[in-house]
């Protein structure tokens, strides 16, 4: 056994002991809970106006965390874009390679065109109902990304508008921050809920929460589509 193996074994043993300690000493009864969660459950519908409590936590009580998650996705996409970015010669080479891929058959290509509006509709629906039903910006955004990415899969040599996707991405991301800043200047607190909660369960309710959902959805959609297209071309 080499020194490397022994130290790896020691590390694993230590981790095992740590995790077993947690399991042994963990009070599974939950008697120590402080009631933060139940308070949010009781207050969310009244204060924020969302029927979906999860969304009220994501976009109102802990909106800054969601902005952070958005930034993590953005950092990851930017870093991947940087690593995968190519010089013009490499670009020409990979374009040649892509051109040698035959486009998918007639059925797949037509199905893509047929699917496209439905995917857009489903994505938009999930995004704008984020404050009412399970779902919201991240999930709907992933569906929007699929709508734009499936055509790239069926015709790899087709164009993908990287410029437009990064423009949309930047603008949608900044609009999330700008809504937050409006709250900062209007209400004195970053990402404070704007507008009145309205009637719980209606489409137009919960103040600025649906706007934030929409910003997240558009941002995530353009980002994921751009990233996936980048993977195919690299």
């Amino acid at each position, binding site marked *: 056994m080499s020194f490397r193996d022994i130290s790896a074994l020691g590390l694993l043993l230590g981790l095992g002991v740590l995790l077993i300690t947690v399991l042994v000493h963990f009070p599974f009864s939950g008697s120590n809970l402080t009631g933060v969660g139940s308070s949010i459950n009781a207050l969310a519908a009244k204060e924020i106006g969302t029927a979906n409590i999860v969304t009220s936590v994501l976009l109102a009580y802990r909106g*800054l965390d969601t902005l*952070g998650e958005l930034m993590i996705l953005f950092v990851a996409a930017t*870093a991947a874009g940087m690593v995968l970015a190519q010089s013009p010669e490499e670009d020409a080479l990979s374009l040649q390679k892509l051109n040698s891929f035959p486009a998918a058959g007639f059925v797949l290509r037509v199905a893509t065109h047929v699917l496209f509006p439905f995917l857009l509709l489903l994505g938009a629906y999930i995004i704008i109902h984020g404050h009412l039903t399970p779902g919201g910006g991240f999930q709907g955004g992933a569906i929007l990304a699929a709508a734009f990415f499936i055509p790239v899969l069926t015709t790899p040599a087709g164009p993908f508008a990287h410029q437009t996707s990064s423009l949309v991405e*930047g603008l949608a991301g900044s609009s999330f921050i700008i809504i937050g800043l409006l709250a900062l200047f209007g209400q004195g607190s970053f990402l404070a*809920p704007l507008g009145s909660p309205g009637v719980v369960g209606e489409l137009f309710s919960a103040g600025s929460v649906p706007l934030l959902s929409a910003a997240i959805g558009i941002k995530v959609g353009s980002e994921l589509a751009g990233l996936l297209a980048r993977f195919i071309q690299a």
Partner: protein
Amino acid sequence: MMGPILLIILPFLGAFLLPIIYRHYNQAGYWAAPVVLVISLVICIGLWHGVNIVGPQSLVMGGVSAPLGIVFYVDALSILFVLVLLVGSLILWLGAWHRRIKEEMLLLLMVGGGSGLVLSGDLFNIYVFFEIVAVASYGLSASRRGDPCGYAASLRFLLLGSLGSAFILLGIAIIYALTGTLNLSHLAMLAPQALHGMAGLSAFALMLIGFAVKAELFPVNTWVAEVYAHAPVRISALLAGIVSKLAIIVVLRLLLLLYAHEQAYMLLLCIGVAGLITGELAAFYAKDLRRMLAYSSIGQLSVIAIAFSIPGTLGVVSGLALALHHALVKTGLFMLTEKWKGSISSLQGMAHSAKWPSVLLIIFALSLIGVPPLPGFWAKFLLFKAGFSAGGGYSYAMLLILLSIIIEAAYFFRVIHLLYQTPAASSTPLIPRNKELQPMLVISGLLLLVMLTIDPIYHHLSKIATQVVDVQAYIDHTLPAWKSTH
């Protein structure tokens, strides 16, 4: 007061808009990122003054007060490290300037995330900002194109870092399950009953492992040498000098607020001692200049961890002094290796052709070893004062640190000795251009400034330390009278 949130939002907004600005106004894009940093710096200095006059402040996010919402705590410590981050990234931006949009975006995101990391008063929020900093640093460490070793190193960094992040998340989940809250001051109130059992301490150990990946502590610092040897030198300087300090400041906060418990202090001490021994020995045997600096940075960060593991104000003061000193000096040393990468032996006789860089290297090295009257001496002096007065196991740790200073002196003097030998016949002089020396000159200027103002700086640091140690003040500022409605 909206300054603290702007410190985070402005870099983020800048990163979103940078590609758009570059596309339409190339010249404006060239200046956009530095302008954002300078504005942040101005805001930060304003906050620094404010905090010095009126004391710590809290800032509620999302219009919901703690513990339901997220709260920021702005005290002298957090502002100090935001200042270090901003000044550091501006200094690293001096001199060579590349029009690489993605790297600028990543750097801005790292600055925004790092500011949030030290300002936030919410455990999960800290994790989110830590992730931003972490992912940005994986990307930046792979930003030199066409270097397979660099890609491999940053991939390993990414794997280890993701594992660490998973541990942090697990630790946070355990804490949430034990207490039902994520707010640091709420947790600080509950800590003595809820978190000082075995399950709570295991959560601390898990989080410590996670933050230790960035803080270069034992045993999750295996990525350090490889990444610093292959990443662009500015990135190595940023990661070793500044980002590692942000991670260790978070550890300090958790330790003081949630785990002011003997076993937690002992855990940090043990990790520090193990890192010190392995780091300094590895530096002694290193053949490559950048790897030597990387291992020495592991050793130095372990010393900072040891300092923070000493309970009470003295330990915190010495740890802060060591952290600030290391942030200056290691950044400078890494910047010097822009041209001097590779084996140490290739430096033979370099002092004859590159006078100024050699002089700078000697100043930085002497300060790092702790030769009076350079600032490094005072930082180590404070540490010994704190350590020996704490007694017990700390005295042995201090003896070990004394020994490590001898090892440190041995390997730095070996390099300096090589610099002043007669040059080898076949060598080509690798002289850094004058423009590349600008950041180092700024740093050595700062170092001399610190040397002349040791006394006021010491008083300021002890003021910061008394503020940081005061847990009750933290709770009073961030947690208003709160009644749960369940």
